[in-house]
């Protein structure tokens, strides 16, 4: 193909002017990537909630209690870490919304005397959401504008 058009050389095309994107684009990219990540985590948390509901419906009420203290303790520690990193509370968004949903589900589970396995699943979901919020907070502090 190039043989038919020798004058249109790579060097000539390569000299096309270079433009720069908007300097404010990088912060927008970081924000959009965070939103996508948060949506993925929130979707995962919703799946966990659905799974917890299904587990509660299928598990016999007489089953031996499962340990709940580990996830609960982990959630407590993460909550303290988040409180020190973000004293005004987590930024609004899908993660914070999902955390609110898990909290309501936990209250409801205790109120109706749900089996320990169901509560453990919810505490685990709460821990994972808190972990994501802490990580998001940490990344936010390290975000660099260029």
């Amino acid at each position, binding site marked *: 193909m*190039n043989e038919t058009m020798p004058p249109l050389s790579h060097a000539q*095309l390569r000299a096309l002017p270079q433009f*720069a*994107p908007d300097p404010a*684009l990088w912060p*927008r990219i970081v924000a959009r990537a965070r939103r996508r990540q948060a949506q993925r985590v929130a979707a995962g948390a919703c799946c966990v909630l659905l799974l917890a509901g299904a587990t509660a419906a299928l598990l016999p009420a007489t089953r031996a209690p499962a340990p709940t203290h580990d996830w609960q303790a982990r959630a407590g520690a993460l909550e303290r870490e988040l409180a020190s990193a973000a004293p005004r509370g987590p930024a609004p968004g899908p993660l914070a919304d999902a955390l609110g949903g898990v909290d309501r589900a936990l209250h409801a589970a205790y109120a109706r005397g749900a089996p320990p396995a169901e509560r453990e699943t919810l505490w685990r979901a709460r821990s994972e959401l808190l972990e994501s919020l802490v990580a998001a907070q940490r990344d936010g502090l*390290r975000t660099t504008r260029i």
Partner: protein
Amino acid sequence: MEPTAPRSVFAQEVPPDLLAQARRGDMQAHAELYRRFAAPVFNLALRVLGERAAAEDVVQEVFVRVLGQVRRYRGEAPFGLWLRRLAVNATIDQLRARRFLVATDADALLARLGAPGPLPEQQAEALALLLRLPPRARAVVVLHELEGYTHAELARMFEQTESYSKSILSRALVRLRRRLGRDGIGLESLP
């Protein structure tokens, strides 16, 4: 799969330490990758799409993917060429998803690029000539002539035959040559 394009701006070396940091989610490392590659991605998309806003959409899409997917990059190809493939795919997605008008007024074309200031006259004229090509022809010219993609690779990208790619390029180059002759601009002035 990737073409060998040693002079492509995407072929620049990236320190392994920088990539390792980016894989661990270090935002400063990602910012550095953006600093190195945002302009090449932007210019590739801009030349093909001919619109600043559309090209910035491509940059945004590509680097959001890098942030989310850099852990999957295993180093089989140089990082820049891996990233270029993301850029080309995102650009072709834009081409497929939207209608891009082919303007004939050079000033209107250059205005859509959002140049910060006046370009040298010959560069502006030649850029306008390139942008007067239909978008798909521009894509073939830019990817084949500047980025070194082969017709076989272009055929796969556009889900067409190699003959289709060759024909598009041939017609585009003939059209450029005619315009250059008609407008009295020497071929050597094509920027």
